[in-house]
């Protein structure tokens, strides 16, 4: 492992001159770092292309930064501030009760609810011991005593649990009652488990309340370290539904009544957290509402997952919008991370006149280097071309662990992973959270990804370790290099701008170019693209698997993307039954296609296959000779191979590929200009196309495994050119930008940036042919 390490992140990602930005940097082994603002032009270091190209912007940022180690709190939990002064453990009797569904009991201690100071052994906590048994423990600063349930908790099973402590007699009581329904857990009623356990015992000691700096926590307990200070440890994996704390001993029959109908008694209640409160049609936030007398709401940290089924989920209502009362589950993960919460190292205002582009803060120190990328838009759009950087996709893939943790990854990519020492460092550090392609430690899919953390795989030189070539932003820079090299006047936009501003963000531009893999789209982005095309906008979609996943941002929190992978599509995980709706927006997630909006409806083509063994080239199709479009192929031979080269596996057609399909909504007047076929069986037809599975759905046998180039016009001189391949843009820089793929792009762009009728538009008559 490297001795010196430096990592950074910034917020926000998309800025205009005059906007304020923050850079957060953490370093180990060094105290100073050189900083430089750079404009990123090309990322991939492959010797077949232009290599890494950046342009320094001296003087824009302070030259020397003082840096230090910043710590990251992993794991989601919730803090109920204000409870400290009301802790019943200071001499009184009390009862805690609630519904829980642990997903990874055992191995280590986990705290579900408590005001427990690990470092000083003070306070009380309800949780699980390392053997996976429910446990209630108290500490007086010197000794700890506990009462433990008899049978271990079974993963993904709901329980009603309660613990009470009688201050007069020091007797404690622990109640654990299984709540197995027909739908709510992994097992149904046929499994002859007796989950119940009621234990009573006199404790050796009474709890001494933890210090004022220790809040009441859901899903964790407070610990202390000389270097870090206070942090949260013994994090919990699993769901917690409604729970409450009472300042007296709640009798067992009363507890049983609560367990059977979930109606918590308000008498003597100190806090009654109702996890089902706060749902709207638009989803739910991070605050867990306390309906008790003191309003001790718990604030979620690192986005505990809401909109999850609760203990009483009856299977009929599959969304919280139908019955929020069944959606009390709040899922906590010990490895969730949506915000590193580092202190800003640099506060910065984007200087006036800074050219729109992809920029980065370059940090160098003692042989280590880090680029912290961000996107600068034009203050007032002037260029005819906008490049829409797919920041949603960058978030979705941020810090993916596919090469290390997904056993099927090599079968999908057909590659043995290629790692660098920086990758290995990253695996070892294991500190910067997951992507929406990863699983949490309890096996649940990760549905949140945020930019408030260092993201290794948006570094410009980064090559995806699973595939050995650049992915997303580093790959997209090939398009930027080509635009620069070809001398086009372009500006940068991001998904986040499109999401926030809608079609107004696109309107100033004559042409909007997508990048290689615009896979994640919100409804606002879909709408805006449609509206833009309808009004006469021109879209070039030179990418693969775009407009695919329904994803969303919570209003006011653009830094965290949410997606739930549902029943169809190439999905790294699959949401549990009833948990397919976005907590951020209230929408059904999954594929846009499953919601009646296949990508074909907007850009004419949609995802059909993926493979990472090798790419191939496009060939012209008969439609390309029609005068409406033949101008696109000027300088390209009738049977010329288009793009039989490239930085993306040696061809312009490949990696993820899209196809034309009228059934899925490709506009009926769409022309099929080109196609690429001859893919190997490592390109299987995507799963959403498979109704019956039968042999021969790979590239060597299935006619749907191909990449298409399509063209259709829209009203008001609008048009959409789609080239269904991720590898396309990565072919453009080959031979210093002089090649057949680049020629095609040039033909297209030169025409599309001209206002007025499109070339060939007049050739709309009926053909009367002799041949």
């Amino acid at each position, binding site marked *: *492992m490297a001795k010196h390490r430096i990592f950074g992140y910034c917020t926000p990602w998309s800025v205009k001159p005059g906007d304020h930005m923050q850079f957060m940097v953490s370093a180990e082994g060094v105290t100073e770092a050189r900083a430089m603002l750079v404009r990123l032009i090309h990322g991939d*270091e*492959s*010797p077949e292309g232009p*290599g*890494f190209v950046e342009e320094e912007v001296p003087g824009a940022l302070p030259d020397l930064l003082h840096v230090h180690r910043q710590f990251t709190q992993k794991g989601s939990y919730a803090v109920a501030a204000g409870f400290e002064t009301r802790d019943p453990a200071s001499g009184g009797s009390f009862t805690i009760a609630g519904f829980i569904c642990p997903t990874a009991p055992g191995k280590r201690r986990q705290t579900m609810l408590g005001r427990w100071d690990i470092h000083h052994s003070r306070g009380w906590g309800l949780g699980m011991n390392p053997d996976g048994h429910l446990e209630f423990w108290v500490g007086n600063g010197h000794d700890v*005593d506990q*009462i433990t*349930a*008899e*049978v*271990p908790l079974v993963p993904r099973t709901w329980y009603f649990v309660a613990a009470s402590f009688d201050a007069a007699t020091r007797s404690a*009581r622990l109640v654990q009652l*299984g709540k197995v329904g027909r739908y709510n857990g992994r097992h149904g009623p046929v*499994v*002859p*488990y*007796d*989950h*119940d*356990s*009621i*234990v*009573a*015992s*006199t404790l*050796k000691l009474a709890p001494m309340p933890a210090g004022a700096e220790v809040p009441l926590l859901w899903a964790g307990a407070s610990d202390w370290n000389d270097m870090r200070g206070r942090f949260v440890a013994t994090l919990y994996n699993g769901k917690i539904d409604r729970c409450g704390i009472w300042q007296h001993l709640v009798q*067992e029959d009363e507890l049983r009544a609560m367990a059977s109908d979930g109606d918590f008694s308000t008498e003597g209640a100190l806090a009654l957290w109702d996890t089902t409160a706060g749902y709207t049609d638009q989803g739910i936030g991070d605050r867990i509402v306390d309906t008790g007398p003191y309003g001790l709401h718990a604030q979620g940290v690192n986005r505990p997952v809401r909109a999850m089924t609760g203990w009483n989920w009856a299977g009929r209502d599959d969304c919280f919008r139908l019955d929020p009362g069944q959606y009390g589950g709040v899922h906590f993960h010990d*490895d969730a991370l949506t915000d590193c919460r580092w202190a800003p190292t640099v506060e910065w205002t984007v200087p006036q006149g800074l050219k729109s582009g992809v920029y980065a803060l370059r940090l160098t120190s003692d042989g280590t280097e880090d680029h912290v990328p961000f996107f600068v838009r034009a203050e007032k759009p002037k260029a005819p071309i906008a490049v829409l950087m797919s920041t949603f996709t960058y978030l979705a893939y941020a810090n993916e*662990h596919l*090469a*290390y*943790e*997904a*056993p*099927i990854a*090599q*079968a999908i990519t*057909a*590659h*043995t*992973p*290629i*790692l*660098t*020492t920086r990758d*290995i460092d990253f*695996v*070892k550090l*294991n500190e910067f959270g997951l992507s929406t392609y990863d699983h949490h*430690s309890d096996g649940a899919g990760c549905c949140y990804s945020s930019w408030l953390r260092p993201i290794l795989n948006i570094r410009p030189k980064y090559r995806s*370790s699973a595939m*050995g070539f650049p992915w997303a932003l580093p790959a997209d820079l090939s398009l930027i290099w080509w635009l620069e090299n070809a001398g086009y006047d372009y500006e940068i936009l991001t998904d986040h701008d499109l999401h926030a501003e809608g079609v107004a963000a696109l309107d100033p531009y004559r042409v909007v170019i997508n990048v290689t893999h615009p896979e994640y789209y919100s409804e606002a982005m879909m709408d805006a693209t449609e509206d833009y095309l309808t009004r006469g906008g021109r879209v070039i979609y030179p990418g693969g698997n775009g407009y695919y996943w329904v994803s969303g941002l919570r209003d006011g929190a653009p830094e965290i993307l949410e997606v739930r992978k549902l029943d169809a599509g190439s999905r790294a995980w699959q949401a549990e039954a009833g948990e397919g709706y976005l907590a951020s927006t209230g929408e059904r997630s999954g594929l846009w296609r499953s919601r009646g909006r296949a990508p074909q409806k907007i850009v004419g083509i949609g995802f059909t296959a993926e493979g990472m*063994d*090798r790419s191939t080239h496009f060939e012209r199709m008969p439609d390309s000779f029609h005068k409406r479009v033949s101008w696109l192929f000027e300088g390209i031979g009738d049977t010329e191979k288009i793009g039989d080269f490239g930085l993306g*596996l040696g061809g312009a057609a490949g990696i993820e590929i899209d196809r034309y399909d009228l059934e899925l909504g490709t506009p009926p007047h769409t022309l099929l200009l080109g196609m690429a076929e001859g893919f*190997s*069986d*490592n390109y299987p037809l995507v799963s959403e196309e498979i109704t019956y599975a039968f042999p021969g759905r790979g590239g060597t046998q299935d006619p749907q495994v191909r990449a298409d180039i399509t063209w259709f016009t829209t009203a008001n001189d609008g048009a959409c050119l789609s080239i269904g391949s991720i590898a396309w843009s990565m072919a453009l820089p080959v031979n210093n930008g002089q090649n057949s793929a680049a020629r095609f792009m040039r033909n297209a762009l030169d025409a599309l940036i001209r206002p007025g009728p499109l070339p060939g538009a007049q050739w709309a008559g009926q053909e009367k042919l002799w041949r």
Partner: protein
Amino acid sequence: MNEPIAPVLHKVGNRRHEWMLRPEGRKTWQRRRLPLIGRHWLTWRGGHNPRTLERERRLADKRPLWWLVGLAGLVATAPFLSDAMLQIAIVFCVFAAINVIWTLIIGAAGILSLATMATVGLGAYAAAAANVYLGVPWPLMFPVGLLVGLMAGGLLALPSTRIDGLYYALLTIGVAEICRVSISQIRALAPQNSSINNVDSFIPQDWFLQRPGLLLGFASAFVLLLLALLLFRLVNSERLGLQLQAAREDEEFSEAVGIDYKRARLLVFLIASGALGVIGAYYAMLYRSISLNIFSLDQLLLMFAMIVIGGMGRAEGAVIGTAIVVLIDRALIDLGPLRIILIAAVVIIVTLTTHRGLADARSQFRAYRNRIKSERRAARTRKGGEVMPEEATEIADKQLIAYRRFDKRLRDRLKALITPELIEEHRRAPLGPHSDALARVMNYFRRGEMSDKYAILQEGDPGSWTYSVMALSGEPGKPPRVVDDRHYGSRDEAYHAVFLLRVNDLLES
């Protein structure tokens, strides 16, 4: 040679013979605790039977049960023993008590002291002298013994901080010998044969060596043993003992977390020495006299034999060892000197066959059984064998068993596809396109489990990258390991190197 080994499938399945409770979840389980230390009386393990999912509650630690059976059996049979046997039982109780305390010193504190009997003897002489010459009444002999024991312990403890192990043991033998010689020289203390007689006792004079006296003697010795066991439990299993246990496992770590194990060690030594002094006082009362015999080397070695046979460090070891040696030494008195040889033989057999005495025999047997089991399983797995019925009982996810069978048969088919031509085909184009045969082989490799799956490390600058082969850990936060020190100049060479490694793994299995 390459013939698959036909699996031998044994029927497995045991009848339930273990005693266990079938609790009902809805009933409250009242867990009572021991007074003072607050621990639960018994350690239970609750759970679900993996075959039926029925609730079970079984004793996680059955030792309290065995203690109860053993000690209650002794008490119950004592009134029916002959006088001679009763005397043996008394000796057993006293020596067992001494050995239990000694075990604290050797086991818990980890100090190899052989001055145990010297401490007992000093306590006994001091208490007897106080009674006979100073007229101290017998109940006050106990505090005298305690005081002398503590003093002796304090003196012996000092050098233990400076020297270790064998040297300290030799030193303590020396101390014992000095005690014996000194006392034999002090005429004033013990005029007759260096022994003090007519010591007052809790056994009335006219009951001495009579049946009621023997019964009372046994009762008192039994209580003494119980007290010794209680002391052992309090010291060994509470804070002090746990600190020392941590220190035995890792001295530096325990020091780092703030355990002052040297202090704990000395404290245990002092407590034990005090207890030995009390036992000395009791000893003098029990026999109404005390003689130099108590310091003798052969007595010490006999006690050492008890500890060795039973096993150091555990109370049950001390008691079992004492029982065996006392029985041979006292009950087989007719054998004469032969019984010493017999004891020596037992010591030799026990040390040769067990790691840590008889008390450890059960866990040693279990470890042996587990070793044999895992050896056989490893051998089968190496040969690509299937899961045996006796192994299946321990695999909760039965799909893994199906995978193993499927995998074995798939590998057998794939092995037949590996030819030099196939390898050459891969070398020419590692990323394809591939023939059907190679595609099948590649897909098998790619689908393998994550742990130890190969990856390629790329190092150096763009344009002069070099590649080497690594293996992934499959665990979050655990980095990949280096497989060998070979470096490859191109990515295709590295891909092919991984392929060759995988072919090798396949053919070897």
